């Protein structure tokens, strides 16, 4: 409608480095695309929540969760594909900046999903923005990955890494200021719930999965610095191995 306040040249400040074409082609892709990128999501947000919110702009064709390339768990972004351009525009217009799962989410036109774009591009597997963060964000796995590593190193000096399975709360280093115990009510509530589920699921895996691949998989990750697992992403008690497999097959 109103063209007065819009700068048509400024579609999106973000230019995806992986886009192979020219700037012009990139803009054309954004102007005709029926795909949106959703950012700043909580790691816990499920596809069904996204579905409920985003169908309010129109019929959804597909949802592609952004996954941590190591852990294959959601890492805070996703793509939604619509059938019509009009609905796509409405999703960007009306949903960007509103709250999903207590977080203001960002919704942008995307140039189109391609295989491979579902993986986080950060060194540690998640999104780049979660590498260097120094704040504590309970919806996005706590501290940033670098900070987590540092904290882990400090902790191992103290307790040699034994029995740390339950030590989900990172030890607070004074230079980071905020204390993990003091975050909001909703956050800590979820955190606690999370913790229980995690123990259960980990125990579960120890009992059932003794295959080589699974243990291999297990040893790759450090159980302590790994962000909290997401209880809402998969409902059933199947092993992670299968989840991961499924994800690969699907994409």
């Amino acid at each position, binding site marked *: *409608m109103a063209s*007065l306040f819009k700068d048509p040249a400024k579609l999106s400040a973000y230019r995806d480095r992986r886009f192979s074409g020219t700037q012009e082609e990139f803009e054309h892709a954004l102007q005709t695309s029926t795909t949106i990128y959703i950012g700043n999501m909580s790691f816990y947000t499920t596809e069904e929540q996204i579905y409920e919110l985003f169908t309010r*702009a129109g019929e959804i064709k597909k949802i592609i969760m952004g996954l941590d390339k190591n852990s294959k768990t959601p890492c805070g972004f996703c793509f939604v594909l619509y*059938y019509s351009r009009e609905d796509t525009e409405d999703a960007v217009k*009306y*949903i960007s900046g*509103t709250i999903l799962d207590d977080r203001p989410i960002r919704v942008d036109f995307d140039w189109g999903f391609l295989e491979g774009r579902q993986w986080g591009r950060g060194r540690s597997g998640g999104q780049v923005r979660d590498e260097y963060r120094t704040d504590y964000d309970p919806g996005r796995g706590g501290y940033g990955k670098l900070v987590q590593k540092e904290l882990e190193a400090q902790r191992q000096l103290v307790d040699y890494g034994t029995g740390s399975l339950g030590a989900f709360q990172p030890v607070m280093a004074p230079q980071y200021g905020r204390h993990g115990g003091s975050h909001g009510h909703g956050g800590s509530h979820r955190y606690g*719930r999370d913790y229980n589920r995690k123990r259960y699921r980990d125990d579960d895996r120890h009992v059932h999965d003794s295959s080589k691949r699974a243990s291999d998989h297990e040893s790759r990750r450090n159980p302590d610095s790994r962000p909290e697992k997401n209880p809402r992403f*998969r409902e059933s008690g*199947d092993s992670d191995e299968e989840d991961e497999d499924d994800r690969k097959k699907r994409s």
Partner: protein
Amino acid sequence: MSGWRSLLLRIGDKCPEYGTSSDFKDHIETCFGVLRRELEHPENDILPFLLECSEQLPHKIPLYGTVIGLINLENEDFVRKLVEKTQINFQDALDSGNCNRIRILMRLMTVLMCSKVIQPNSLVVVFETLLSSAATTVDEEKGNPSWQACADFYITCILSCLPWGGAELIEQVPEEIERVMVGIEAYLSIRRHFSNIGLSFFEDDGETEKVSLEKDFLEDLWDRIQILSSNGWKLESVPRPHLSFEAHLVAGKSHELGQFSCPDLPSLPLSAILYGKQKHEAELKYPQRIHRLNIFPPNKTEDIQPIDRFVVEEYLLDVLWFFNGCRKECASFMVGLPVPFRYEYLMAETIFSQLLMLPQPPFKPVYYTLVIIDLCKALPGAFPAVVAGAVRTLFDKIADLDMECRTRLILWFSHHLSNFQFIWPWEEWAHVLDLPRWAPQRVFVQEILEREVRLSYWDKVKQSIENAPGLEKLLPPKGGPNLSFGTEDGKEKTEHALSVELNDMVKGRTPAREIISWVEETVLPLHGLQGIRVVIQTLLHIGSKSFTHLITVLERYWQVIAKVCHDEDKQVMLIGEVSFFWKNSAQMKAIAIDRMMGYRLISNLAIVRWIFSPENIEQFHTSDSPWEILRDAVSKTYNRISDLRKEILSLRKNVLLAEEDAEKAKLELDIAESKLTLVDGEPVLGENPVRLNRLKSLAEKAKEEVISVRESLEAKEALLARAVEEIEALFLSLYRNFSTVLMERLPEASIARTLGALKSAHTDVMAVDFAESSRMELDDENGRPKNSQVNGGTIANVYNAGEKEQWCISTLGYVKAFSRQYAAEIWPHIEKLDAEVLTEDAHPLFRRVVYSGLRRPLD
């Protein structure tokens, strides 16, 4: 943005461009001062930008009009061009039926008249031309009264100009304007009262006399203008900056408007059905801009003159319209209108009236959700309380609220709360637990909680209702999928084994065709129907982890399901299995059915059949779940049609283009062929052979292209024809089913001719649970304001409908909602519907709601 542009854009706003001043006179002088210098550079596109600003920021038109008036004193030629351009735009808008543009350009012309830019007589000619077109339209003999919506719109436009220039017109051309007013009065006496039936927010209890006594939008506006005129045309909501410059402005040369004309309307249809179709079409093309929703009692709302209410509504609707998608500007213009009084209540009523507008709002409801969120943030001290007040009033009247409005309200409110930490004083509504399961207020709360859980998660919502823990009973079940096999002894084991086998095959990536043969050779012969169930449940289970898991399973193994559910009976069974598997998640149930329809594993007819199975019928009045599934099925069918229509439209264009290309190529070839070329000194017909060959092949290709585009057009048209048949079958089946179930449950036609009679039928005839209903009355007296006079009617203060009555009322409400939403698709099939469903035998109440949903006059 260059200086003059942002000055024009920001004029009248509190903004850095204008420093500390908030005085309109200063703004106009500053803006004019800069513009007069810029006008020396003709390459500046000041003219189109100025018009664009006037059209998209119509609440600033008085300021723009005065600036234009001042320019007129120095640069008559520029302003003459501007007036000409305005007139061209106005004619375009009339021809294309662009309602907002027509209305706003008329306001601009009125204001230009105030600034001495346009001659008052020219404006009167505009009014008279529209008036005479309107009068002809409603004339039974010469015109086509089915297009009254257009005529009413023209008159509304004339009246809408008067707050901006009534005083000036009366002063300068009193006789002429008097003539216009007399003409409008005459028009009002011959036009038909616009009946709001089918479009009102609240059920009017079938009191048709009351409805026809209520003023329609045009009559109401006429009254407001009468009061304005008797007040000497004084009002507070329209700034009149030109008065400060009047001494200068009078020196300007007033321009004349040229000729213009109103487009011709279709001629009068011959049959009543065609008349109804045209009337429906006209009302869609010239919709009433606002249906007023009076939520707040008069003592709460701002005490303003009737005409000021109208003007502020105009401002708000314009901002909503033009700033759709510009969040920041939308919110800041909404709260910063150029009026000297507060208007939060009026603003809330206006936004809610759009959100709930029937048949549909100008934009998707989620837009209004966003606007309300932004206004709550922009006015944190005032607006949230007003919104909460609106919710309380609507909750009090929920039993009378239209079904479609209820659904929108539920979706809006749950979404709104999700943006504000789910905080709501639920204890106020805890009393709904004392109401029966089917009481509309209770269902309303339950559905809000359902949607909240979908947007968030169970524990979070449970935590949010801590101040009314009893409401936990209304939360949806917490569990996930529900995998379970036959309960017959001994069978369970084999079924489990079967399921494990299939599971392993899927894990081992067995191709679909191998699974199909396994099903055909092992499952069907040995386990029959029960085997099919296991296959379906197992596949559902594999796809149960997320939306994407479901899609993946369907993508890979839909053929397996198609094989075992090849006919409608089996499809109905399949839906039943989905419903059983997802009995704890209404959302996943709806998604799974929707996706299966997408894969054409189940037809919309199968869905309708399943919806009208006993397990669903008994939830019609207690849950939105079956309705959600039905809505999805109808909308998917409709989306298919509308996609095809769009594709066909663009293919038609392509055919034309291809034909043009082919003609061009042919022409070029012909010219080349007819040219004489000298070969070996002899003149030969035709150009050099290389070029000729190339042209030949080009012409050939172009011809082939035409054929291929035509073929794809034909293919799409065939698909459309099939889709139209499909939707006709769907509506026939839907209405047949509605008619049957209602006939079975509605009381005899002689007892219940109106909804009102139906509502009181319970207390009159049916057995009543007196203990229950008397307790409810007490609750209501505590909970509701007793004499809330809303929308002119009294509200039914006590909920005392019995289960059966509520079932009928709810179901009829949904019938009306479907009819109204898809009226444009239903009208083309009305003859068939009349012959097969809406016959003499149909229950009169059923017929009534269908007719009112279609906005079809009852005989």
